[in-house]
């Protein structure tokens, strides 16, 4: 197992002159998954945005698959194997489900048919436009679209947000299938603590733009420990 598949070193990044992330360092071996939790506005999404190249990197470096991608353009990072499912899903509203998938296609194992196998629901919607889908369907499509790029690292930003509990349960199962069967390295940012802690053995807690905990998820199942790390009153 490559222990430095993703290697962030002393990252400081933000939007323009405003620094949101400070001194972020962690490594992620290939095939391993990690959940990132924290209160609203602590920099979880900004961390994913920084790995994807959507923020301004002030210092530090991002190595991915033995290659420094700190200064790479966004689409080159995607080509390098990073797939990103954004919090807002950002489905193309006037494209159909199938077109949403096809515009992201690149050579590799994932194909439209395989996406439909993972999410049969989408197959039934293939000719419906993006703006005709429910929140759950949009989330499936956002994940499917990211997979169509055949990534080796999949980053998902709060996929359960705004979804009905029954849909969240189903989504959790699908994400677990990806983790177990698709040979993907996954970073899951979640506000849903239960989902985050059950998803991966490793969990990172962020507070005020910094990593305050990086370790075994089971440790955080103790509510007092969790609250202490998340900066919440016990």
């Amino acid at each position, binding site marked *: 197992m490559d222990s430095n598949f993703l290697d962030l070193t002393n990252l400081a990044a933000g939007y323009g002159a405003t620094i949101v992330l400070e001194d972020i360092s962690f490594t992620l071996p290939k095939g391993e998954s990690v959940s990132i939790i924290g209160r609203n506005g602590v920099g979880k999404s900004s961390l994913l945005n920084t790995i994807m190249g959507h923020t301004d990197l002030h210092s530090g470096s991002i190595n991915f698959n033995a290659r420094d991608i700190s200064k790479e353009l966004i689409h080159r990072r995607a080509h390098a194997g990073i797939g990103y499912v954004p919090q807002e899903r950002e489905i193309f509203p006037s494209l159909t489900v199938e077109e949403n998938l*096809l*515009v992201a296609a690149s050579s590799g194992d994932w194909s439209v048919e395989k996406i439909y196998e993972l999410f049969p*629901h989408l197959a039934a919607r293939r000719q419906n436009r993006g703006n005709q889908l429910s929140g759950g369907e949009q989330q*499936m499509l956002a994940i499917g679209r990211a997979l169509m790029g055949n990534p080796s690292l999949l980053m998902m930003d709060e996929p359960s947000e705004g979804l009905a509990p029954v849909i969240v349960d189903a989504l959790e199962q699908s994400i677990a299938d990806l983790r177990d069967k698709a040979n993907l390295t996954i970073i899951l940012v979640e506000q849903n603590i239960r989902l985050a802690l059950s998803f991966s053995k490793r969990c990172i807690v962020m507070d005020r733009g910094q990593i305050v905990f990086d370790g075994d998820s089971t440790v955080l199942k103790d509510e007092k420990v969790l609250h202490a790390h998340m900066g919440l009153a016990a």
Partner: protein
Amino acid sequence: MTMSEVQPPSLPTNSPKVSPTQYMHDRVRWRLSEALPWIVAVGAFWVFPNYLVLGTQMIIMIIFALSLDLILGYAGIVSLGHAAYFGVGAYTTGILSAHFGWNEPLSGLLMGGMVAGVFGFASGWLLLRYHGLALIMLTLATSIMLYEFANVAEVWTGGFDGLLGITIDPIFGIFESDLWGKTYYWYSLFVLFLVFLAVRRIVYSAFGRGLVGIRENTKRMHAIGSPVHQRLVTIYVISTIIAGFAGALFAQSTAYVTLDVLSFSRSGTVVIVLILGGVGRLYGAFIGSIIYMIIEDELSRISPEFWEFGLGLVLVLVVMFFRRGLLGAAEDAMKRIRGASS
């Protein structure tokens, strides 16, 4: 419970038993209703034999509008200087004929498109790094600079007096230009058909769908690995080649090129045409061009001084009441009728 067990709500769905390739192929398949504009265009030759010159100008406007629709309607590139490429095409064909005796129509047409494309590549590579208001201003500035350049280079362009001495050989060495515009009507219609086939193919391809993605969410297209700038430049060049064809056809059909081909009013007119017909819907260029030129022809006959007031009024009404253009309004009406009948 897995995602496959979650039952979808009752939204109309389509059969999934079609491969993606077949799916895209089906999207490109012609619908019966698409024959209508071509039947009208062919029929117009016999029904309106005295209006074939105007008909030719309509067809040229449709080609020009299609070129703008590719970048504005599909890729979201707003340009107020698209006449630059129409003008480059017109002057290229005109200069080749007037100064070099290159009178063969098909190669002249191709040269007009190619030179416009080269110019489109050079300008697009730079301009498309900008967005929004900056891009609008830069496209406008490009066409203004070209207008002034053509004005100064009067040895080649004829300057303010226009380029005279354009002579075009018979098409295929057989079909000569005639006073009634019959030959150029068919010639222009044939070119329009070829251009339309190409544009339609592009629009329904994965590349074309990607352009819509860029228009709707550029940031997301970057993140799914799309080389956005490269794709924008590609469609811009294709668009400028088509605009160049329109300009070349204009030069060949009128045998005269003036600075007007590069003017802001021509750039503005083609935007108005698309707004009237409907932006980003292929046949909007047809409807808009025909409506615009009929209005222009009729109103300028009624009031040569104030016809633009009437045109402005029509535009205001369309923008206020038919935001998706006349074609969009027609589609909405059809949906309502179908909804009411079902």
